[in-house]
């Protein structure tokens, strides 16, 4: 018997395509016209998923206005419906979608702002870890430092944009209404949730390359070299201090076990 499978296939098809009539099994049931009743399901699905996207992308919504956002979200949901019942992280590809969304072409930074907002939600739900303080690094013998691998915090997400994405976010979200937005400057930012609150930090030049290298599995010495190739006057001590202050380091793996220091 395939009746249940057929009915669910019909029902799903009609949910996905508003131009289709309600499934025949539904239509024949009651003498009343059924379209409005079936539309409750279409509406529940669309409205609830739009709300999920509104909750994840409030700054994108503010930048384009509520009506525009809803219209864009609708197109996105039809193109990329959720594939998991866990909706906490739905919208991973919304930024990429906005990049190519013709009506948003006048707001070229929208996709980057969306990727930043998704990174924030992703950091919010990421695994927990106690951040290390810089004293842990001080306990690593000098000779081993260059070969030490860093495990960065599981919530760390790096965002890089040719637009001032972090300042745009700060100015629009209300986090820092005075934030200066210089549209001629790109920005690198780190999103991180060391404890309960999600942090957004603008990274100094070289910071992105340094952290990306550490996250990519390069030991400290190599990561510093890579960063120095990216910016001329890369100040390793300063970047290390910033990294620990941010709470971005979860563990250190020196090449050999650390000797306990008195």
């Amino acid at each position, binding site marked *: 018997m395939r009746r249940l499978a057929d009915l*669910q296939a019909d029902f799903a098809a009609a949910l996905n395509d508003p131009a289709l009539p309600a499934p025949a099994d539904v239509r024949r049931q009651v003498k009343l016209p059924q379209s409005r009743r079936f539309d409750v399901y279409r509406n529940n699905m669309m409205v609830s998923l739009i709300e999920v996207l509104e909750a994840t992308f409030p700054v994108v919504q503010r930048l384009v206005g509520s009506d525009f956002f809803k219209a864009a979200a609708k197109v996105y949901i039809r193109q990329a419906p959720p594939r998991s019942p866990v909706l906490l992280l739905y919208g991973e590809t919304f930024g990429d979608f906005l990049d190519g969304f013709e009506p948003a072409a006048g707001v070229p930074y929208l996709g980057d702002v969306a990727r930043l907002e998704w990174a924030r939600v992703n950091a919010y739900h990421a695994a927990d870890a106690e951040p290390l303080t810089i004293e842990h690094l001080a306990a690593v013998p000098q000779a081993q430092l260059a070969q030490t691998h860093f495990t960065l915090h599981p919530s760390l997400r790096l965002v890089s944009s040719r637009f001032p994405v972090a300042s745009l976010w700060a100015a629009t979200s209300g986090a820092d209404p005075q934030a200066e937005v210089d549209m001629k400057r790109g920005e690198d930012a780190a999103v991180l949730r060391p404890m309960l609150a999600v942090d957004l930090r603008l990274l100094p030049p070289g910071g992105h390359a340094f952290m990306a290298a550490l996250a990519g599995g390069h030991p400290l010495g190599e990561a510093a070299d890579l960063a120095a190739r990216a910016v001329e006057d890369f100040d390793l001590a300063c970047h290390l201090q910033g990294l620990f202050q941010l709470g971005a380091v979860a563990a250190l793996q020196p090449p050999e076990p650390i000797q306990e220091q008195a």
Partner: protein
Amino acid sequence: MAVSAEIPARAGVGLKAQHYDAILGSRPDVGWFEVHAENYMGAGGPPHHYLEAIRRDYPISLHGVGLSIGAERPLDEDHLARLKALNARYQPGLVSEHLAWSTHNDVFFNDLLPLPYTGEAVERVSDHIDRLQEVLDRRILLENPSTYVAFESSEMSELDFLQAVSLRSGCGLLLDVNNVLVSATNQGYSAEAYIDAFPMALVGEIHLGGHARDRDDAGQPLLIDAHDRRIDDKVWTLYARAIARAGVKPTLIEWDNNLPGWRELFAEARTADRLMSAQDALRRDRRKGLEAGHATVG
């Protein structure tokens, strides 16, 4: 985990992130809290932090909204594993899901879609509940749905369907009184008769929530299970009727959209607690009356 897992026959409240601080700050006299399982399926972060803190002081009920028990296709084993992990971590006093489906060809519709009440669907749903109960190693409760359409192919009533599933799978039932009113209004049957015929011995929990009113194409009333406002007086009346038959049961206040402040939500819980106390008192009086009657006769 400090307090026992057991859900008392009192009012509980659906837990929302917006109320974490109010709850932890005032430790209100609420019997228990219910969470939507899918909201706690992230790896870490504030949701788990707050739920752990609340679980230290209150029993928790785990309510799934995304397993798609009514789908023809097999259950999503990854999702079952996530439910199993939550069940182990928070030791909920009750676990429940819906008589509905929500996934087709891997697309998740984020809505509770209706089933035809057929023998084939009884088998499918029962098999899926078997699997869920096997994975969790516990009995679950299945909730009666809100429906907006019915199917030509249905062969039995919703009540017969629920009883058949319970008989085959051994699951208990979650009686959502608002869903009863919504479905009865939309399908044109008596909500009172439904409550009067509901197999109360199988009921482990009751849900109460608010609904929105609309009209269908023919101008007939169409109720929507919106959970976006206070509980309707008609639902309170049906609830009193249900507990007069069933006795007091763990009763959840559901408010998921257009959220009120904590105090307004708490007030709804107090109303449910008062109705349960009144029902308890009535039962005690009746028992005393019976005993007194026997004494005089004897």
